[in-house]
């Protein structure tokens, strides 16, 4: 069962990989900072390690899809992220694509 479990985990990670970026973009329709974003995603069933989330946020910001600013909250400086205008447009395109993929898979699974 160990080998089968490892194989399931590996395939499960592959299945999740693309959806994580979409989940992050959707959740950043409203402004959040890293910790609350991670908690929101975990509550949605999309657990993500900080070591994965923060580099992803930086990459999306470098790609122009997110905006960020440092603000003080609870006596500490936190970096808040939200979607940029380009990010909003990209999210809509990705959601369309997600719905297309989902519809195709539904047809295959239950013809």
């Amino acid at each position, binding site marked *: 069962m160990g080998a089968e479990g490892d194989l399931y985990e590996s395939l499960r990670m592959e299945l999740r990989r693309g959806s994580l970026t979409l989940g992050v973009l959707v959740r950043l329709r409203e402004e959040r*900072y*890293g*910790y609350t974003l991670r908690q929101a995603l975990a509550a949605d069933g999309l657990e993500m*390690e*900080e*070591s*994965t989330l*923060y*580099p992803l946020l*930086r990459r999306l910001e470098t790609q122009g899809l997110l905006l960020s600013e*440092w603000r003080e909250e609870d006596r*500490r*400086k*936190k*970096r808040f992220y939200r979607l940029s205008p380009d990010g909003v447009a990209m999210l809509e395109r990705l959601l369309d694509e997600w719905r297309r993929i989902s519809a195709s898979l539904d047809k295959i699974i239950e013809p």
Partner: protein
Amino acid sequence: MTLVEDYLRIVALLLPKGQRDDIVAELRDTVLTRIEARESELDRPLTEVETEALLREVGHPLVVAARYRGGAQQVVGPTLYPYWAFGVKIAVTIQLALSALVFVVHAFSGGDVATAFGHAFYAAFDGIITVVGFATLAVWFIERQRVRVDYLDRWRVRDLRVLEFAAWDLDAFGDWIARLTHRRSATPANDLSPYRASRGRERAGRALGGLVGCCVTLLWWVGALHFGFTGLNDLRGMGIDPGPLAQIDLIHFKAVLFWPVLAYLALVISRYLLVVVGALSTMAEGLFYVASGAALLALVTWIWRASPFGPFVRLDGLAAAVKLMDQHHSADVLLAPLLSVGLICTALGALGGIVHGLWLVVRSPLGERDFDGR
């Protein structure tokens, strides 16, 4: 919070300079927020052990810093890995075969078997590490320089014969011998006769095989690879008597020839590289053939006329050598006649290369000037 600050200081050192402060500030906030959340659950401050466990969950500083760095995160990436593995397999096979040959020669020429095995093992191990190192370095460089190897996009099925070696096992070796001796027809899985071109393996496949062979030769010539040969007397174990040639100072001979042979190998390797990347026109290839043929002919001429080997391999020297063999009733084959034949064949091959090169140069303006040489 000394533990946390120590951790963040190490992570900072591993981050790109321009983003260091920003990333560390964000990491600090993340770590402190997690600590506060854990302390809130436990209703007490975390101990040092618990804080360290939490930092371990965040990740090792090397791993955390690597995730913020862009660019390739591997030495040999997935695109080039199959080609790296194939090249290394060929080169390691050549190294092992030559080391085994040296062991047999030393062992059967009266040497101590254990010592011969030790020398051969050391030569094989050292050579394999060197070959793998150079191959990895070459691929590392290609990946980071974004050199586009044309062969990756433009290979053709008829170029694939050279890959037969990658699939060789004892069954394939047996089938190959059977095909050579016509004892039985090849098994279907190994029968590539429908793809056999009348001119043998095609250009890019030949170039790839030649490139690996030349690189191994180059590494041996510059002393980076060793096969365990100590001198011409090693050939006695193979039934070849070097005779008076054993007295020749090979070290001085190699020193005189070092740069000319290195230049020749560099010329041939350049030609193979350009063929593999698809950047060699027919005319340019012709010029390469002429240049390398002329260089090889000059080398053979020097060995024949002016080198220490000359007096023994020339025809008048051969007659004396045969007379010597008769006098000593030696059962061994004399090296000198073998060298003579080898030099004559090499000279003929060089002349053939020059003629072939001239033909390519003359032909190129008349036919299509395609970079695949077809």
